[in-house]
Each structure stands twice: as structure tokens, then as C-alpha cells.
């Protein structure tokens, strides 16, 4: 088990494309760190640099106290779970799990004990003699996990390991991965583009965009205090609504429909701002108390919740409101809504950074 330090890490490809730009991260021993972002944001490249599958263009990479920039992947004491599992198709499950140990020159007896232990942990003992082609997606996923834990490495690396599974299995394996990591206490870096997966797994979350880190922090912090409009829009499901509004003075916000909102704290900005509010932070109320009235165009009843879509008054901006599933709505209905004043987010329209 070890901590990791990434210092001024850069990755530029021969064609000039910079995939990762000046990345700085300290990962604590035993921490579950999730890298999340849209495709092409540099999260996978970062992971592959840690694994040693991709060279580091500049900067330093430390695992524990050792600088590993120039070490072969096998010498970094890491294990990786690939998106397509990368099981050796011609080897049995047993041999797949044993291969890394064998290459390290461990004794036959040690290998056997470790493989069986790992198989037991993952409940795949009955599959040890099967070849990967015969396994279901979930089983392959387990074997890939088994290949990682059998070596008892310093760091687990996960490269979108659940994205090839169906939705139900994904949830199940998500829980399992979390459980295993907690049990072994191994440092883990996990790459995903799925923000729900990211939120549920992470001790700390790193949101990346365009090769740069947007924000680092515990999931709930990113949800409550997104540092930029990008993080605000990326974290949370359903996604945050955005409106262009106007600051009349440091505590008064004017909405496009002319409604004035008194802010709980004065902000350090003036003029045009981007107002962000989450669908779940809109509550229905009496017309007198309301901030705006939503004429409902589309209703998505999900059971526990109901999602209502409609344009914000006097704009073309589609707004989504999440309401309790108990209430009944119908299309065309006009619903008075009120913002949760404590949970409004303001962003600078130019820099897209949070205004406090």
C-alpha cells in the first residue's frame, strides 16, 4: 500500500496534442480516487501514465517514495482492470490469474494458494478451469478483478471497468468493487465517465476537462460547492439548470422574467451572471410565494420522483424540475415554483468560475 504523488505531469503526443496539462495530485495511502470527465478529458491518459503504459512527457510520478517515471509497468507494483477486461483468451481463469505471479517467479504452491484465495474472495472458484470465452460479462469482470487482487499490489488501477456491463450488473459490481477496496485498504485510482459511478465510489473525486483538473474534493463537496460551471453541470443527476441573470446589486439578482431574488450573502460581482440551480432544489408552492411559473411540456414519471420539463418564462431555456412522485401532473399545467435560496450557484459568464 502506498501513496501516490503526481507533480506537474504533462502528456503531449507526437502530433502535438496535449492530453494532460500540468496535473498535480496527492493520493493518500488507501484512498479511493476517481477521475471523472467527458471522453478525451485526459483521465485515461493520466491513469495509463501511472500504469506505465504511456510515457510521461514531463513532470514527476511517485509511488510511495520512489520516482517511477522510467520504470516498466511490471516494476511499479500496480494492477490494472481494463475496460474490455483483457483476459488472455487461450488461458483458463486459473492461468489468467496466475500468469503475473508466475512471471515474478513465485513458487507453484504460493501461486496456487493465492489464486484460490482470490477466487474465493470473488466467488469464482467454480470457474477456475473455464476459458474466458465461456464466461458471462459479469464473470469476466470478476476474473479481471481477481487477476488484480491476486498480486496484492500497492495500487489498483481501474480503466472504466464497468462500462461493458448492463445497468443492473453495473450497480452490483460497483458495490463489490467498493467493498473489496475497503477490505484490502489498497490505494485505488478509478477512471469513469459516469458521474453516478464516480460519486458512489470515490473518497475523493477529480473532475477533468480538456486535459486539466477542474476540481478535486469529496463527492458531496463537489455537489454542493462546484468550483466551475463545468463541474456544476457534470456532477449531479439530473443535471443542473442554468439561466442568464443580472445582478442589480451584490445581494439582488434579477431573473429573465423580471423577478427579483434576495441572495443570502452578498457576492463579489456585478452585471450579468450565470445562475445555476439543481432540479431537486425547486419546490412547488403557492402562486404568491413563487419565483416563477413553469408551464409543463413534458412529464417523466420515474416513480419515486417526477421530472417536469418546460421553458423558463420569457426565455427559450428549458428547465427541469424534480418533484415528489406522489403528486400528479399533466401536460400544459402551470406550476408555481420556488428556488431553495441556500442552494443557488452563481458563475461568471466569462471565466465560468464560481462567484462567492
Amino acid at each position, binding site marked *: 500500500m502506498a501513496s501516490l504523488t503526481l507533480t506537474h505531469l504533462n502528456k503531449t503526443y507526437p502530433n502535438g496534442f496535449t492530453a494532460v496539462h500540468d496535473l498535480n495530485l496527492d493520493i493518500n495511502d488507501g484512498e479511493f480516487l476517481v477521475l471523472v470527465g467527458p471522453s478525451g478529458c485526459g483521465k485515461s491518459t493520466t491513469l495509463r501514465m501511472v500504469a506505465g503504459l504511456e510515457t510521461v512527457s514531463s513532470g514527476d510520478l511517485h509511488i510511495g517514495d520512489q520516482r517511477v517515471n522510467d520504470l516498466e509497468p511490471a516494476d511499479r507494483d500496480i494492477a490494472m482492470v481494463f475496460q474490455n477486461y*483483457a*483476459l488472455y483468451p*487461450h488461458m483458463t481463469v486459473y492461468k489468467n490469474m496466475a500468469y503475473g505471479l508466475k*512471471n515474478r517467479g513465485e513458487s507453484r504452491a504460493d501461486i496456487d494458494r493465492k489464486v484460490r484465495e482470490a477466487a474465493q474472495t470473488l466467488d469464482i472458484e467454480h470457474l477456475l478451469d473455464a476459458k474466458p470465452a465461456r464466461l458471462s460479462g459479469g464473470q469476466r469482470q470478476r476474473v479481471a478483478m481477481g487477476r488484480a487482487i491476486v498480486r496484492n499490489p500497492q495500487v489498483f488501477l481501474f480503466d472504466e471497468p464497468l462500462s461493458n456491463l448492463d445497468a443492473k450488473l453495473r450497480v452490483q459490481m460497483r458495490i463489490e468493487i467498493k467493498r473489496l477496496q475497503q477490505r484490502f485498504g489498497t490505494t485505488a485510482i478509478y477512471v469513469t465517465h459516469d458521474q453516478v459511478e464516480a460519486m458512489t465510489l470515490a473518497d475523493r473525486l477529480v473532475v477533468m476537462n480538456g486535459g486539466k483538473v477542474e476540481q478535486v474534493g469529496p463527492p458531496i463537496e463537489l455537489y454542493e460547492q462546484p468550483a466551475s460551471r463545468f463541474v456544476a453541470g457534470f456532477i449531479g443527476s439530473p443535471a443542473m439548470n442554468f439561466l442568464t441573470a443580472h445582478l442589480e446589486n451584490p445581494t439582488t439578482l434579477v431573473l429573465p422574467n423580471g423577478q427579483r431574488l434576495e441572495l443570502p450573502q452578498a457576492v463579489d460581482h456585478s452585471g450579468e451572471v450565470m445562475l445555476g440551480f439543481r432540479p431537486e432544489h425547486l419546490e412547488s408552492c403557492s402562486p404568491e410565494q413563487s419565483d416563477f411559473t413553469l408551464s409543463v411540456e413534458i412529464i417523466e414519471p420515474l416513480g419515486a420522483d417526477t421530472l417536469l420539463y418546460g421553458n423558463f418564462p420569457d426565455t427559450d431555456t428549458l428547465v427541469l424540475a424534480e418533484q415528489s412522485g406522489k403528486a400528479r401532473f399533466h401536460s400544459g399545467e402551470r406550476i408555481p415554483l420556488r428556488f431553495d435560496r441556500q442552494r443557488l450557484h452563481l458563475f461568471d459568464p466569462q471565466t465560468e468560475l464560481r462567484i462567492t
Partner: protein
Amino acid sequence: MVENRPWLTLTRHILLWLGIAVISLPIWVALVAATHPTSAFVSGILPLWFGDQAVTNLVAVLSNDGGLGVSVSATRMLWNSFVMAMVIAVGKIVISMMSAYAIVYFRFPGRQLCFWLIFITLMLPVEVRILPTYEVVANLGLLNSYAGLTIPLIASATATFLFRQFFMSVPDSLLEAARIDGAGPIRFFKDILLPLSANNIAALFVILFIYGWNQYLWPLLITTDEQYYTIVMAIKRLMTSDNGLIPWNLIMTTTILAMLPPVIVVLAMQKLFVKGLIEQEK
């Protein structure tokens, strides 16, 4: 089948049987001819049914008691053909796998150049460079030797491309997983790539064995010593007889011996071979 049209189905079967009959006719006649004494061919027309001399002819050919137009026995020539076909097939597979591995899994200065040099050999079949290649082999002292029979034919762009294609279709993540598991280039090749290529190797082996076995022009040029004759190239020699009487029965026995090994290989590995052949188009 979309619909049922009995007359159409019948036509199909009839046409197929006709095709098979035409395809098989020469073989039938060859088999029949191989069972008669030489005298049977003087009368003017090929016999249509089997005679009783099959074993006699076979023994005559295999031991060559003098009836053949050459001084070696068919046994020796079969052995020569076998050596030639095996060395060419195995040699081609080995060296083209090696070079394909280097080209796909390494980045090194001169890689493009190597690729193009190999690629060019596609455009230089032995038939277009007969004389100069002959001179090279003669200068190296390889006339009338197994080395001379095989080595100049062993470089193959086709096999290299086939392996290159296959290696490129192996997911990158497999190599990455192996590297994390501590496998270097040799170990990755031996433990992962080689077993995964087993089917391709087998299919290619069939094609290349046949290619080697059926070589004609090349052995014709570089063997003057009859000890190195291959059975395929010798057939033509057998037809030049001194007394004007062509020993069709012995020629046909030899011919059947010459085509039996490759035909058996094809039929035994039909499925793999067909698949391997079709890969070449891609």
C-alpha cells in the same frame, strides 16, 4: 432458403454433379491408367476400367527398376518434395512471424524501410527474375542442394502481411495486461501471441506446404543432379522416352503420388485452410 421450388433444387443438384464429374474426370482416368501395363496404351485408346497392375506399377515407380525416364526412384523424389515443402512452409512461417512481430510491436529506426522492402517482394515473383536469381544461387554454390531449393523461396510478403494483420487485430490491452503481469517481448510472444496465432499458423501451413510442394520452375532450373529432383518437376521428364512409347501407366502412378500429399493436407484441414485462404483477400 426463401422459398421452395423443387425443379430449381433439382437443377442445382444436377449442375453440381456435372461439375464434380468434369472436375474428377482426369483423376478417374489417371487412376485407371495407373492400373494397367504399359502395353495397354499401344492399342490406341485409354482403357476405361481398372486393370490389375496397380501394385506392380506402384512398386516399379517407388523402387524405379528402370522404367522411369530418370535414374532416381519416386521414393527419393517424394522425400525431396517433402523436405522442400516442409522447409519452405515452416521457414516462411517462422521468419514472417518474426518480422511481423518486429514491425507491429516495436518502433525502431528503419521500420518503414523494412516494411517497404518486404512489401516489394510481392511484386517480384520468381518468374520475373529467373535468370539473375539463378546466377545468385549459382554464385553461392547452392545449385543441387536443399538450401538452394528452399531458401530463395522462403521470404514471403504474403505471410508477413497475414501475421501483421492478425497481430494488429489483437487488442492492445492484452499486451498491456501482459506488461503489467511482467511479460517482456519474448515472453509475450511465447505465452500470448503464439498460442493465439495457432489457427492462423495451421491455415498458413496448409497453403505454404502446397505452395512448396507444387514448385516447378525453380527446381527445374537449379537441379541438374537427379538426386535432387522433386516429384512434381520430374513428371515432365518422365514423358520424354527414348523408344517413343510413353509409359502412361508409370507416369500416372507418379502423378497420383505427386498430388496425394497436398490433396490429403487440404482435405484433412479443409475448414482451417479455407478460412486462411480467404483472409488473404483482406
